[in-house]
């Protein structure tokens, strides 16, 4: 009995609660006779398109800068790159790859500039990064109004600026999902998307085991000790921030193509929170993370949301119950993680 309690404690009570809730939802799904293959297909897509955004949390936590609340920085870079790809009418999978390519140099520059800030505010990274992210989203709202995009399909017909939501039908709507896609008993398997996600996960896994990755982990775990061993802690933090920003940029492009829309203006404001929540649900803490945590967490969190939507609609047709569930679950798990940082000590 004692052992069980210990297990529960190390696993975390909220995680058990979330798992129980997920099981309940699955049971409800069968009770309400919701078409399982369709829901399962949606689950897979949601997991895939959110995975890279969650993966962006790994370098930051490794290097000790904590959860990267400034993910919107990378997202904005990805969005600009996406807009460039649409402006020049790139289509299909090559269009997506081109958008990613364009986003990377931008993310590197932005990430580097941002790391200058984050290396000067050690100990308060989370708060500063949150509001840096918010500020950048707000200034980019003006950016979307004034940036010189002219393609008729992406700007407002009347007035200034880009549209709030841009559907991707003309360019690369679900192109990656459809690549090599096939169907098993009604469940669509988006092979291209899964491949892309697996590639990024494996790359990150390899990076964590590389020499640089080890040094980064050491810098995060014990900066003093790392410095004594000749590791340049600040460079490690810079590298981590750049990596995280780059992943954010690529992540939003994968997200947008799978979703079918680019959402501009205030849409990226809160995007860091579900990504962080997914990692935490998977067993990561603000100090320790693995690719396994990210994968498990994203699978659990996104299937929870994917199943909650039809179940909630079956129970209460009006209102957005799944959105409320998302708010409570994602912020609840972040609060839990914060309260277990040993009295905020780092």
């Amino acid at each position, binding site marked *: 009995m004692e052992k069980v309690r210990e297990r529960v404690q190390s696993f975390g009570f909220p995680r058990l609660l979330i798992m129980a809730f997920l099981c309940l939802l699955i049971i409800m799904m069968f009770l309400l006779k919701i078409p399982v293959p369709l829901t399962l297909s949606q689950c897979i897509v949601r997991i895939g398109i959110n995975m890279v955004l969650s993966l962006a949390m790994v370098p930051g936590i490794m290097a000790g800068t904590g959860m990267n609340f400034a993910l919107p920085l990378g997202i904005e870079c990805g969005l600009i790159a996406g807009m460039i790809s649409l402006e020049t009418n790139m289509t299909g999978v090559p269009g997506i790859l081109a958008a990613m390519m364009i986003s990377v140099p931008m993310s590197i520059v932005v990430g580097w500039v941002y790391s200058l800030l984050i290396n000067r505010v050690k100990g308060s990274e989370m708060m*500063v990064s949150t509001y*840096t992210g918010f500020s950048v989203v*707000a200034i980019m709202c003006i950016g979307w109004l004034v940036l010189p995009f002219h393609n008729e399909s992406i700007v407002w017909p009347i007035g200034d600026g880009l549209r709030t939501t841009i559907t991707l039908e003309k360019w690369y709507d679900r192109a990656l999902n459809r690549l090599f896609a096939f169907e098993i008993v009604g469940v669509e398997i988006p092979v291209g998307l899964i491949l892309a996600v697996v590639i990024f996960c494996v790359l990150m896994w390899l990076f964590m085991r590389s020499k640089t990755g080890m040094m980064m982990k050491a810098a995060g775990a014990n900066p003093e000790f790392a410095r004594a061993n000749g590791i340049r802690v600040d460079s490690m933090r810079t590298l981590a921030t750049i990596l995280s920003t780059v992943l954010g940029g690529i992540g939003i492009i994968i997200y947008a193509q799978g979703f079918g829309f680019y959402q501009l203006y205030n849409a990226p404001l809160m995007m860091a929170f579900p990504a962080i929540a997914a990692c935490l649900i998977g067993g990561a803490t603000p100090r320790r993370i693995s690719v396994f945590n990210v994968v498990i967490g994203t699978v659990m969190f996104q299937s929870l949301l994917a199943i909650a939507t039809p179940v909630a609609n079956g129970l209460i047709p*009006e209102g957005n119950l799944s959105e*409320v569930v998302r708010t409570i679950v994602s912020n609840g798990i972040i609060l839990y993680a914060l309260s277990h940082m040993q009295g*905020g000590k780092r």
Partner: protein
Amino acid sequence: MGRQMKKFLINNAVTILFVIICIIGIILANQPLSYILGEISSRLFRNLTLILALIIPVWAGMGMNFSIVVGAMAAEIGIIAATNFSISGVACMAVAFLVSIPLSLVFGNLTGRLFNKTRGQEMITGMILGFFAKGIYDLVFMFLCGPVIPIKNKAMLLTNGIGLITPIDLNQETKKAINNIWKVTLDKALYFLFFVLIAVQIVLIVRKMVKNQEKFQWKKAYKLYASIAGLIVYAVICHTSETVLFALRFTDVPVVTGIIIAIVCVLITYLSRTKLGSDINAVGQNRAIAISMGIPADKVRIIAVMMSTLLAALGQLIFIQDIGNFATYTAHENVGTFSIAALLVGGASIKKANIGQAILGALLFHTMFIVAPLAGKNLFDNAQYGEYFRVFVCYAVIAISLALHAWKQVMAKRVAEEAEEEA
């Protein structure tokens, strides 16, 4: 002198920058003085209590209390309860406040306990707590009201009987109920304010003279001179400028709301002179020393958050009665961010805040808020520029203040370490 000047400029960079932004904005907005004065005055009375609610946790070393959102929710629950029983007028506000007192105290207590578990990261915790509480609030009022929680006033429910409508309108008698009790024009209110200031100064000086058995010290009474000079300048302006006088007469000031704000200010000042106040300060300065002095630090911190949450509830009530309605599910969303940005603009920091900074911040911040869209419209023929700009400024002020503070702390630590190594 030059060095002092530089220090002053650096320490008050945000405030000075804001004064400049406001002046440019007012010029660009090109609006009649009466309009701007009226808007600023009404926004000042509307928002000031919410900003004042932030001060006490700053003293306790917990930084900006992002969780005043929870207090705002308590106030909204109070109004929903009062509207449910179809109470209107001042009684509605009184009932709402009575309901929100226990709620906000309980919420504040829980928040304080959570903050004690996340010491050093109170601000991010408070922010996430605000989002989390919004989720719970939505769950209760969107889905449980109607099927689970009985609602007497059917007009508040959506047509299918599940969840509250948005926005919730206060009826004609309740709208501005507190503001409408007693109104005077701004020109009289300012005269009154100057006379009160002078009277308070005189009373303070006389009390000091009696207490210390000393003569009147002409040199030390500069605050009194400033007040008198202010009164004279004001009287001269009123008598010479038609436009100013017209603008002042055009603007109404809600006296009772003003009195409530004054009481809050006096209570906060009084608190700072009590044992509890000095305990709060001690905990904020250095927790370890405070504990060694026998101060129950965790308890003091909880009390500070509870007071802040209660004041936030009062502030949100004043805010909503002035507007006359509130978006049921989103009215509390920006309460924390806007209030905090305003306080920081007034020159406060994560470690220091006082009533003067709150008032100055409210004035400057809301001036910017009014003129930015108008300026955007005049400059680019699109009010959106200004609207996005003011949101950006709001976030940027918080980001810059937090970053500057964190940077100063890191630098101080480094200097201390270097000194230690040398020794």
